[in-house]
């Protein structure tokens, strides 16, 4: 059957036959880099048009419908517009940091892509601390926001950056705790182990109510971490014009925009991997016939299907709920999500020790 891992294997073999190992590794790195950049571009285009269409339908509108069939090429036209725009750097700005910030945001997003398993045996770097790596690297993206906010020399940017810093630092806790509940059950941080452990059912089904609770907490926390509505205080159009990227224009703005959408994709991919089995098809216990039928759907389709489902849910949040106030935001984290997820983690530990999960 057609599979992505066959392609990568054959490329690797061909390269190793043709060159010495060092050069082959280098070439592979370059290929991976190009693929990642390509994926970014495609993801940006798809997610932006998806968001615009979803928001339109949820608000009883039509959305973009002029460029291309049903407006599907709208984001391509927007990208072209952004490419042709002048990239301004304000006079009072710290030029070096101002130009560095979007690049850092992009690099952090690229690094986050490394441990994600897109399909069976198709992963850039199956690092043994996968989940920890993701939460570590995602903290770099805070820095890029803080940097952008400071370097713009604009009070809106500074306020936005501070808000988003406070928000990301606090929501990282409950996101981390809900991820930890899966790690406790699996006993490994490696993403391939986590996917493998869901061979007889996804954790959200195997883990009873505690897993469902941590799934919900995870969704809420990552929505906050990616600065999306209802937690978009960092951007908050009505209060801060555009928050930390008020002063950005042209391609630099596009990089921030792209990084935001790629981050959404990544957190949804991680959520799909942890709770919904990643590329693992829907398997139910010992129903071998059923499991076998499900195996016919390629693993990459499973992964992308689940990820896009989660992205849709997060968009659904965005276009349904009003923005929180900053005190409500911190209340929600420190008084509700954190205590609940701490209690939940105790439950999960108990479950793991007693072997109550399937």
């Amino acid at each position, binding site marked *: 059957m057609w599979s992505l891992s066959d392609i990568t294997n054959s490329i690797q073999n061909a390269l190793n036959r043709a060159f010495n190992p*060092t050069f082959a*590794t*280098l070439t592979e790195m370059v290929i991976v880099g190009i693929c990642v950049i390509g994926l970014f571009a495609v993801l940006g285009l798809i997610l932006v048009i998806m968001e615009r269409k979803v928001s339109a339908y949820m608000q009883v509108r039509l959305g973009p419908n002029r460029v291309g069939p049903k407006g599907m090429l709208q984001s391509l036209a927007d990208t072209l517009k952004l490419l042709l725009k002048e990239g301004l750097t304000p006079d009072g700005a*710290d030029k*070096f*940091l101002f130009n560095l910030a979007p690049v850092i945001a992009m690099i952090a997003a690229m690094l986050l892509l490394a441990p994600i398993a897109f399909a069976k045996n198709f992963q850039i770097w199956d*690092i*043994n*601390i996968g989940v*920890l*790596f993701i*939460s*570590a*690297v995602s*903290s*770099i993206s*805070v*820095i890029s926001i*803080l*940097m952008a906010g*400071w370097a713009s*020399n604009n009070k809106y940017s*500074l306020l936005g*950056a*501070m808000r988003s*810093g406070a928000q990301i*630092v606090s929501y*990282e806790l409950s996101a981390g705790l809900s991820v930890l509940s899966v790690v406790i059950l699996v*006993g*490994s*941080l490696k993403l391939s182990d986590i996917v493998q452990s869901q061979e007889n059912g996804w954790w959200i089904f195997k883990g009873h109510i505690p897993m469902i609770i941590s799934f919900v907490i995870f969704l809420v926390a990552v929505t906050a971490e990616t600065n999306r509505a209802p937690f978009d205080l960092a951007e908050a159009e009505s209060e801060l014009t555009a928050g930390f990227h008020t002063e950005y224009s042209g391609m630099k703005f596009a990089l921030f925009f792209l990084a935001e959408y790629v981050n959404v994709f990544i957190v949804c991919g991680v959520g799909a991997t942890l709770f919904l089995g990643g590329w693992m098809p829907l398997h139910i216990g010992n129903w071998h016939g059923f499991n076998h039928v499900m195996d016919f759907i390629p693993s990459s389709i499973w992964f992308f299907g689940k990820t896009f489902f989660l992205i849709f849910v997060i968009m659904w949040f965005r276009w349904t709920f009003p923005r929180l*106030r900053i*005190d*409500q935001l911190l*209340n*929600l984290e420190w*008084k*509700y999500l954190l205590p609940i997820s701490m209690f939940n983690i105790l439950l999960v530990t108990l479950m793991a020790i007693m072997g109550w999960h399937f």
Partner: protein
Amino acid sequence: MSLSTIIFYLLATLTLVSGFLAVTTKHIFRAAIYLLFSLLFIAGIYFWMHYEFIAAVQIVVYVGGIVVLIIFSIFLTHQSGQNLPKQKLGRTIFSALAALCGFILILVQVYQHQFVGTIERSVEASISNIGSQMLGVSDNGYALPFEVVSMLLLAAMVGCIVIALRTPKEIKEGGL
């Protein structure tokens, strides 16, 4: 020179350069950012050594925690956007000497130490190994220090809660 060595020297140079820039720059915010880069490249060296866990913890603690705290305190400081005033020459010399002494101390330590070669494979620094060492009560376990540190954290948390509980009655509205 193999690729691996090149990468090591690259990371080491970058670490040193950004560390040097952190102390020489005139902008306090830039100093924080250079410090951040220096810490990140150290994490890179850990990755190079295949100590992924240590590297990730380095990033989580220093980048996600300490540097963000530093940046926050810079944000909240008055007039932090201006250039730093020029330091007195005496202070500069004193701090350079202090740094040099520290450097010499480390060098002396390194050169006095006898590095014995071993044919045993190094212990794999996997998470489960680290975890069982951390909570082990046998000879090489670190259960006692671990528990002492957690007591410290618990005390800090209780302190935070006590401070946070003392809210004036007036602003006790809003909520979720």
